[in-house]
C-alpha cells in the first residue's frame, strides 16, 4: 500500500510567496493574541492554590461558591473539571502570605456543607517558586533554540540553522498564540509539551534539509528551487506518515489521558499540525531567501569525493 506515489515534483517554491504570507498572517495573529489576551498561566507560574475535589453527586457550584465566600477567601474561582462531580477550586495568593493552610480551611468549609466531599489533589505554589519556574521555562526555550541553532550550524550550515530555528519559533509562537486566544490554561506540563514540540518540529526541517543537502551534491544541473521541491516531494510520504503516527499517539493521550494530560496533548497536536506545514512551507522558502548555494556543501567535500570545478559553475 502506498498513498504518495508522486511522479512529478510539486513546485512548492513557486508558492513561496503565498505560503510565507499565510504563515506571516498566522504568526502576527498569534503575536496579537499573546499581546492582547496574554497566556492564562496556571498556578505553577502565578503562585496560588488549586484544589480538585470530588463529590458523590453532581456538585452545586453556587452552593460551593457561597460556602467559600463565607470563609472570607478572596476571588475564589469554582468550576467543574472533566465531569460534573469533579470540581476545581482556584485561590489566588493573597497579599504576602504563603499560607499552605488555605486548603485545610477550604476543605473544612466544604465538609460542613457536604461531608462526602473528597480531596483529590491540592497544588500550592508560592509566588517566588512560580516566578522561578516562569524564568526557567523562558530560559529553557532560549537554551533549546540556541542549542539547536549551534548543532545545525555545525552539521549543515548557518543558513539551514537559521531557517530551521525561524520555522520552529514560528510553531512555538503559534502554539502559545492558540493558548492565549482560547485562554486554555498554560501549565508546567504544557511548557514541557511546547519544548518537546520545539525538538520534534525541528526534526521535520532536518529531514527535508538532509535531503536538500544530498540533492545539492547529486543533482548538479538542477536549480536550487527545483532541488528543494524535489527534496520536499520525496520526503513528503515520510513526513505525513510520521506525523500521522505521532498524532495517533497524541490523540490517544488527548482522549484517554484524562484532564491532567489534556492541555499537554493539545499543545502537541497544534505543534504537530504546524510542524508539517512549517518544515515544508516555512523553513524551505526562508532557506531559499537566505540564498543557499551549492558551493556551501560542494566546497567541503571536494578533497573527499574528488569533485571537479563544474559544481561551482551554477
Amino acid at each position, binding site marked *: 500500500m*502506498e498513498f504518495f506515489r508522486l511522479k512529478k515534483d510539486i513546485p512548492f517554491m513557486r508558492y513561496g510567496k503565498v505560503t510565507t504570507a499565510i504563515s506571516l498572517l498566522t504568526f502576527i495573529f498569534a503575536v496579537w493574541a499573546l499581546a492582547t489576551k496574554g497566556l492564562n498561566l496556571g498556578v505553577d507560574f502565578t503562585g496560588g492554590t488549586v484544589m480538585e475535589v470530588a463529590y458523590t453527586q453532581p456538585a452545586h457550584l453556587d452552593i460551593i461558591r457561597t460556602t467559600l465566600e463565607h470563609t472570607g477567601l478572596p476571588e475564589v474561582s469554582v468550576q467543574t473539571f472533566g465531569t460534573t462531580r469533579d470540581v476545581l477550586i482556584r485561590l489566588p495568593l493573597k497579599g504576602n502570605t504563603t499560607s499552605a493552610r488555605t486548603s485545610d480551611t477550604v476543605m473544612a468549609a466544604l465538609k460542613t456543607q457536604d461531608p462526602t466531599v473528597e480531596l483529590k489533589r491540592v497544588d500550592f505554589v508560592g509566588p517566588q517558586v512560580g516566578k522561578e519556574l516562569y524564568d526557567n521555562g523562558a530560559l529553557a526555550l532560549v537554551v533549546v533554540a540556541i542549542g539547536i541553532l549551534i548543532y545545525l550550524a555545525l552539521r549543515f550550515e548557518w543558513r539551514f540553522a537559521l531557517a530551521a530555528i525561524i520555522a520552529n519559533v514560528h510553531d512555538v509562537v503559534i502554539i502559545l498564540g492558540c493558548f492565549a486566544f482560547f485562554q486554555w490554561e498554560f501549565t508546567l506540563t504544557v511548557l514541557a509539551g511546547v519544548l518537546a514540540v520545539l525538538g520534534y518540529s525541528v526534526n521535520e526541517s532536518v529531514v527535508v534539509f538532509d535531503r536538500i543537502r544530498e540533492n545539492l551534491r547529486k543533482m548538479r544541473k538542477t536549480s536550487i528551487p527545483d532541488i528543494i521541491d524535489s527534496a520536499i516531494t520525496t520526503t513528503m510520504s515520510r513526513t505525513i506518515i510520521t506525523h500521522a503516527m*505521532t498524532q*495517533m*499517539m497524541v490523540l*490517544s493521550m488527548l482522549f*484517554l489521558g484524562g484532564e491532567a494530560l489534556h492541555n499537554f496533548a493539545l499543545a502537541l497536536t497544534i505543534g504537530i499540525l504546524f510542524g508539517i506545514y512549517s518544515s515544508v512551507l516555512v523553513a524551505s522558502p526562508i532557506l531559499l531567501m537566505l540564498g543557499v548555494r551549492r558551493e556551501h556543501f560542494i566546497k567541503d567535500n571536494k578533497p573527499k569525493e574528488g569533485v571537479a570545478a563544474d559544481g561551482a559553475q551554477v
Partner: protein
Amino acid sequence: MNRFPLWKYILIAVVLVVSVLYTLPNFYGEVPAVQVSPTRSAIKADAGLMQQAEDELKIQKIPYTGAFLDANSVKIRFANNDAQLKAKDALQARFGDGYSVALNLLSASPAWLTAIGAKPMYLGLDLRGGVYFLMQVDMPAALDKAADRYNNDLRIQLREQKIRYTGISRVGQTVEIRFSDAATRAQASKYIASTFADLVLTEQDTGGDYRLIAALRPEAQKRTQDFAVQQNITTLRNRVNELGVAEPIIQQQGLDRVVVQLPGVQDTAKAKEILGRTATLEIRLVDEEHDVTAALQGQIPFGDDLYIERSGQPLLVKKNVVLTGDYITDASPGFDQQSGQAAVHVNLDSRGARIFKDVTRDNVGKRMAILLIEKGKAEVITAPVIREEIGGGRVQITGMESAQEASDDALLLRAGALAAPMNIVEERTVGPSLGADNIKKGFHSNLWGFAAVAIFMMVYYRVFGVFSTLALAVNGLFLVALLSMMQATLTLPGLAGIALTLGMAIDANVLINERIREELRNGNSPQAAIHAGYDRAWGTILDSNITTLIAGVALFWLGSGPVRGFAVVLCLGILTSMFSAVTVSRAMVNLSYGRKVRLARVSI
C-alpha cells in the same frame, strides 16, 4: 551485504534478556507490608530487631509471608491488608515510642529478581498519591541567630577577660561593641581576633565613641547557611519519622530549599502541622521591676518584650534568653502529679542542666517564662514562680490546654529545633484514587496509541511494518527496563513522555522504510535497496534525534519536578529508539532476508 556478524545478534539477545529481567518486577504488583524503623538515628535496625518482630507476630498468631532487613528498617510482608493492619498495631504496641511502625507496599516480585537488583519503576506522587512539600530555609534568620550567639559569647568572654566595654548589641547581622577609649578597644580587638577566627573586625569612630564591629566572614556565613540547611533536614527527618511514613524522601534542592515527599500520606493537615511548625522553646526571666500597665500603653522598658499570657494577663519578659530548645535531649507528654494538668516533661543536656540550675538558684522567688516560638512569633505557655533550685536537668512544663497539645509540643521539642525557620513555598497533594486513575489513563493512552500505530504500520508496510512494530515494542521494553534499572521517578508527564517517544520513535522506521521503497523505485535490487535504505536513513535519524535530545537535556537541566521526569523519559526514549530502530529492526530484516542471495522481492 545484509548480514550481521554473530556478535551483533548476541549483543541484541543479551540486551533483550536483561531488559526483560529488569522489566519483570513491574508486572508483579505490590503486597502489603509493615516497616519497623528506629526513630533515632543512633539505633540501628539489625537481625535482633527482626527476630523480635517475628517472635511478636508468632505470639500474636499473625501470618506473614516474609521478613527482611534493608538500609535501616525491618520490612515484613503480608498476604492481605487485614493481617497488615493487625500486625502494625501489634508491633507498635510491642516496640513503643522508640520505633516507628509504618504501613508500606512492597514489590511482590520473587526474591531472585530482587537479588539481581531488579526493582519496579519508582512511581512519583502523582501516580501513587501522597504529599509533596518544597520548603525554603529562611537564611537571614539563620544568620541573625548566629549573630545573636556571637553577641552572647562576646559579652561573656569580654566580661571574663575583664575588658571593659560600654555597650554591646546586635545590629543586623553584625555585633557592635562600644568602648570608652581606643586602648581598650585595641585590647579587645586583639583578644577577639585570636579567639574567634570566624569573625572579621572593623573599627569605627563616631563622635568620641570607639566602636568595634564584628561580622561573620563570608566563608563562615556560607558554613552557617549550609549547617542550617543540614540541621533542618535532620530535624525534618526526625519529625517525619514521628509520622511513621514509609519511604519518605527528604533532600536538599538548590542552596536553601528542602524537598519533602511523603508517599501515601493522607492526613495532610497533620503532616503540614508537624513539618511546618518551626517551634522551639525559650526560657526567659520575667521582668517584675517594671510596670506592666505602663508597658501596655506602649512604654515597654528597654530589653523587655511584652506578651499576653494564655490566661489573658500581660507579662513583661526579658529579651535575654536563659535557655533554648537546643539543650533539650528528650521531651515527653504526661500529667502533673499534683494538679493532674497536662504537662510536658523535658530533659536537658548537662550544659543546659547547669545553666538551668544556676538560673533557678539565683532567681528563687521570681517568675520564669517558658515561651514557644513558632514562625517568629513567641507565645508564653506558662510563667511559673521558681520555688527552689532545680538541678538534674529534669523540668516539667505545665500550662498546656489539653493532653493533645502537650503531646504535640513534646513531639516538636523531642524532634529538635530547626536551625532557621522554614516556609512551605510549594505544596502538592494527590489523593490515592487520583493516582491510580492517572496510572490507568496513562497506561490506556499508551496502549491504544501503540495499537493504532502498529495496525497502520503493518497494513502500510506489510512485513517491514511487522519488523517496525516489533522494533517499537522492543523500544518500549528497553525504555521501561532502563527506567526500572535507574530507579528514575515515573510521573504522569513521564507516562505521557513514553507515549510521545513511542510516537516519535516510529519516525526512524518510517524513514528507513520509505527510503527502501524509494531505492526500489529507482530500480535497485532488493538487497541493495535494504542496505542503502538503512545506510542513508541513519544520518537523517541521527540529526533529527539529536535535535530532540537537545530539547530533552535542556528540559532536564532547567525543569523541575514532573517536567524533569518527562525530560528523563524523552532523553532515554530517543536513545533506545535509535538503537532499536537501527539495530533491532535491522537484525530482524537481516535474519529473514540477508541469507537469500537472489532476493526477487521484499514485502514493503
